[in-house]
């Protein structure tokens, strides 16, 4: 009898262990899977929305691990070679140029719009009131930069021949643009976001903003490549959800944007980081803005940046389903929140209800 009790004890212990293990398994299976994304960004712009989403734990909420990879050059090559999953801040014109060359890139969201100034010396600023005033001038530009396309296209629309009536001088960086204007080698320069302190310290001033030349002028698009299915689609949706939430934080609390962005900009003084990420002309929007991407594609053809693209159907280079799903989940999770309804309305206007 004593022996039986001992045996009974062992059997019970074994049974309890099994139940316990089974319980753990059930727990593990209900725990959500972790997703990983490698996100490339151009270091000149930083990545404000992604930085906010990381700092606020929005990606963690989604079980999404995001590794940020910085680039001065080669970001879209890295996307093309599958070395990164998302190219975040490489403009609109540059990925469109890759698409024109046959790249299978897809736009899934947005990150930046506007905020790029045309600058000249303060004493010459009064010479430039309308686009006609740029005739005969020497203009420093960075090829395929957002303002490069927007400005040339605005001149073209105003009937100014960009090859004959003006003289564009191509340089490599914003620093080169500012020095070219400052030293008098050119009359005006097409600058970029985040350089206002330096611009003013050099005795230069903005005469036009990209926002004035083209409302909703697009900069960085959330660009991915290939067919997006399965885990990739889920991860991208989670990423977009983080960006949509981050956009709200930036609008409601720019200070949080500044704090989240500081580590990305290393030793730069706080006021400098603030002007890069919180400049008033700069709009950080996660909306894909298909309408304006298509407009940019047309502008690039008008100014001769891309040609023979009739065989390319740009529709195939958008996948807005992840943004839609992300927004849908946010609306369902916050049914009384007016903010997300406005975001949806903007999405409809910029991506669906246009011709």
């Amino acid at each position, binding site marked *: 009898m004593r022996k039986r009790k001992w045996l009974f004890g062992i059997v019970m212990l074994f049974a309890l262990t099994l139940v316990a293990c089974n319980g753990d398994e059930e727990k593990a299976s209900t725990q959500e899977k972790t997703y990983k994304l490698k996100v490339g960004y151009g270091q*000149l712009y930083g990545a404000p929305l992604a930085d906010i989403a990381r700092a606020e734990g929005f990606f963690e909420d989604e079980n999404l691990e995001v590794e940020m*990879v*910085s680039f001065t050059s080669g970001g879209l090559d*890295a996307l093309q070679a599958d070395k990164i999953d998302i190219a975040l801040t490489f403009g609109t014109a540059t990925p469109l140029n890759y698409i024109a060359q046959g790249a299978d890139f897809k736009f899934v969201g947005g990150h930046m719009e506007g905020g790029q100034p045309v600058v000249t010396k303060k004493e010459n600023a009064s010479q430039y009131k309308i686009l006609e005033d740029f005739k005969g001038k020497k203009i420093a530009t960075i090829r395929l930069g957002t303002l490069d396309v927007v400005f040339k296209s605005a001149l073209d629309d105003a009937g100014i021949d960009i090859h004959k009536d003006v003289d564009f001088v191509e340089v490599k960086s*914003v620093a080169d643009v500012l020095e070219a204007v400052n030293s008098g080698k050119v009359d005006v320069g097409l600058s970029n976001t985040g350089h206002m302190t*330096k611009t003013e*310290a050099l005795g230069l001033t903005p005469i036009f903003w990209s926002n004035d030349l083209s409302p909703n002028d697009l900069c960085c698009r959330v660009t991915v490549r290939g067919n997006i299915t399965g885990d990739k689609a889920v991860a991208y949706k989670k990423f977009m959800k983080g960006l949509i939430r981050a956009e709200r934080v930036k609008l409601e609390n720019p200070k949080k944007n500044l704090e989240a962005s500081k580590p990305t900009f290393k030793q730069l003084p706080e006021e400098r980081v603030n002007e890069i990420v919180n400049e008033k002309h700069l709009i950080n929007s996660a909306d894909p803005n298909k309408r304006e991407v298509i407009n940019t594609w047309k502008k690039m053809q008008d100014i001769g940046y891309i040609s023979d693209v009739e065989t390319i159907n740009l529709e195939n280079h958008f996948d807005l389903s992840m943004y839609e799903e992300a927004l849908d989940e946010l609306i369902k999770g916050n049914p009384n929140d007016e903010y997300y309804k406005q975001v949806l309305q903007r999405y409809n206007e910029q991506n669906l209800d246009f011709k």
Partner: protein
Amino acid sequence: MKKFFSIYIYTTIITIALLALWFYITNFTGWLSPIIFPSPEIVVMAFFKALIELFQGFVSSMKLLVPSFVLALILGIGGGLFFGLHPKSRKILTPFFNAFSPLPLTLFIPYAIALLPTFELASIFILFLAAFWPIFLGTIQGVLLVDNHFWDNAKTIGLQQKDLILKVIIPASSPFILSGTGTALNLSFLILMTAEMFGAKSGMGYFIQFYTDFTQYDYVLAGLIFNSIVILLVMFTFEKIKKRILFWTNLKNEAN
């Protein structure tokens, strides 16, 4: 030591004079824009503020430079000896050497990113290309210019191929190999900025590129000074090694 100081005292005087000139122009004249040419004291402040970042950059850069340079040395000297000793192969491939060696390395960035599995390996590849060609071409040149009497003597005493290479060809061509190696070292530092344009989080070239993009010239100059000190120390060590290897030449009389 006495000789060392007697020569470098002038170098020190020139350095101090240049610093004084820089201090004077930036503080007491309006000749230069203070944005692009910050005064030395501002640069020194930036230098110390960024010191940890500069050292992190040094470590990151060495992780790229050392393996790329070692690989360039092995393949450059090995390949150079092979093509130096095999005229037919050399003649066939010389057009390729001439065509590829002067190509700008930024051209290779997309290919390096596409073909190599990590960003670090892509950077190492770019740096390897920078260092490889001068060593490789210097070695070929060295082998071709080995004095005839060395060949004759080697033949007379009946040296085997291995001994011929190790005891005659390499020592005789070492001035050219080392000259190519010196050029390769210089070029490697020059190309660091290109190699650290993608995927890097820190680095000596990355530091300068980063702050140039933001027109933060006090940090740019602090980075330039830091890099110059590192390059100076590396070249000083290299010259010491070179003199020891080339003990039979006039180099030993050069102060270092």
